């Protein structure tokens, strides 16, 4: 059963040392309100699973967690947009496991979908292949990556109905649907909460059975202002 709670309650279950997946991609589709609460709570030594780092320049969305030094370990595909992550990594204060992005998301899908791992050509002949199991299939070798799961996933969708069904919008789904399936406790931040039946069955991106808690975040208009400021200030929008 999905409960509708506030952001502060939703992150209360996250304790030091836990593995937390956070959905989104450079701010877009990130649960910004939940991240703010996680920063406010200050819980440390998190093992974070996030596809990329902060919006370029740092300090936005998941970038607030690195700035607040709450991450001990990071599984990701890219940290270059977050100077703070790069600094902590080069200083040896942060352990980072780099994954090709397609491998990263597929590992999460395997974790949620009960598959034993990912077999991919990506990375052959590079240092990411070092020490990794190679599996021969029909005469060709593939690298084996293990599934990823988490204690908690903080995800973001456009709308949620009162049962917990989620509808995504634009390209803001990115890593969210996969993470929704791969964590023991899943919190979804949404722009609006609607009555059951408003989201048509074929427009449900994540079925309610995966969603433990629903949190009303900023609405679409508030987010439009927030991203417009972000984009204009960083020279990406005229």
């Amino acid at each position: 059963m999905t409960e509708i709670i506030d952001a502060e309650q939703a992150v209360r279950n996250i304790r030091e040392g836990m593995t937390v997946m956070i959905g989104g991609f450079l701010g877009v589709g990130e649960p910004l309100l939940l991240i703010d609460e996680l920063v406010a709570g200050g819980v440390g030594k998190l093992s974070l699973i996030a596809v990329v780092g902060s919006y370029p320049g740092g300090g936005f969305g998941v970038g607030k967690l690195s700035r607040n030094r709450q991450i001990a370990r990071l599984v990701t595909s890219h940290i270059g947009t977050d100077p703070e992550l790069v600094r902590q990594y080069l200083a040896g204060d942060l352990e980072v496991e780099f994954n090709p992005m397609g491998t990263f998301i597929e590992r999460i899908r395997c974790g949620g979908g009960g598959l034993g791992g990912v077999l991919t050509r990506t990375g052959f002949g590079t240092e990411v292949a070092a020490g990794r199991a190679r599996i021969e299939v029909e005469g060709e070798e593939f690298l084996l990556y293990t599934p990823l799961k988490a204690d908690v996933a903080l995800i973001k969708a456009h709308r949620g109905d009162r049962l917990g069904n989620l509808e995504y919008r634009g390209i803001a789904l990115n890593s969210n649907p996969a993470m929704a399936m791969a964590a023991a406790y899943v919190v979804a931040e949404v722009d609006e909460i609607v009555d059951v039946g408003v989201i048509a069955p074929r427009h449900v991106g994540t079925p309610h059975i995966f969603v433990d808690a629903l949190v009303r975040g900023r609405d679409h208009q508030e987010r439009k202002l927030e991203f417009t400021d972000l984009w204009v200030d960083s020279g990406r929008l005229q």
Partner: protein
Amino acid sequence: MDAREFIARRIAQEFRCGMVVNLGIGIPTASANHVPHGVDVILQSENGCLGLGPRPSRAAADPDLANAGGEPITLLPGAATFDLATSFCIIRGGHVDATVLGALEVDSQGNIANWKIPGKRVPGMGGGMDLLAGARKVIVALQHADKDGDSKIRKHCRLPLSAVGVVDLIVTDKAVIEVTAEGLVLREIAPELTVADVVAATDADLILPATVATIHV
């Protein structure tokens, strides 16, 4: 014209109508601005769409629409959005006709290094390794020399590789070089240069065909 725009303009000439193309951040993305009129390429963004349009106005910018560099985007009519798992099935599965990526170095074997400088710069590979492994054609956009004047077109890459033997075409501010089984073939040179200039500026051995064209952008 600055070197970056020169490269972007030349890369745009590689595009054909109906091609599915993924463009990396920087010069590759800029090449989309120079696609010839009437050539409709289908731009894929690895964070989850096909049918990327031009940049939005401030009024049209949408917090749920951005490219893999975090920049606001529009979607063209006929666009499709999807999650990362599907996006990388498209990429790894060989459904992207061409990718254009930047690089730190490329070499005679078609190897490419573009994801880290050990101990110095460690951004991570992002979706680059999957694009290199999965795209049908790999075009590399880079300046011919680094800021110390050292050739980035190497006999052998010195930096950690992103993929082995995948590069098809190298486009720089000085030349267009094709990667073949025999080695690097010099196809075109920049207008103000001679073949000898390019050979001198290149660490890798270049195969010189009977005719080397001049780049027109």
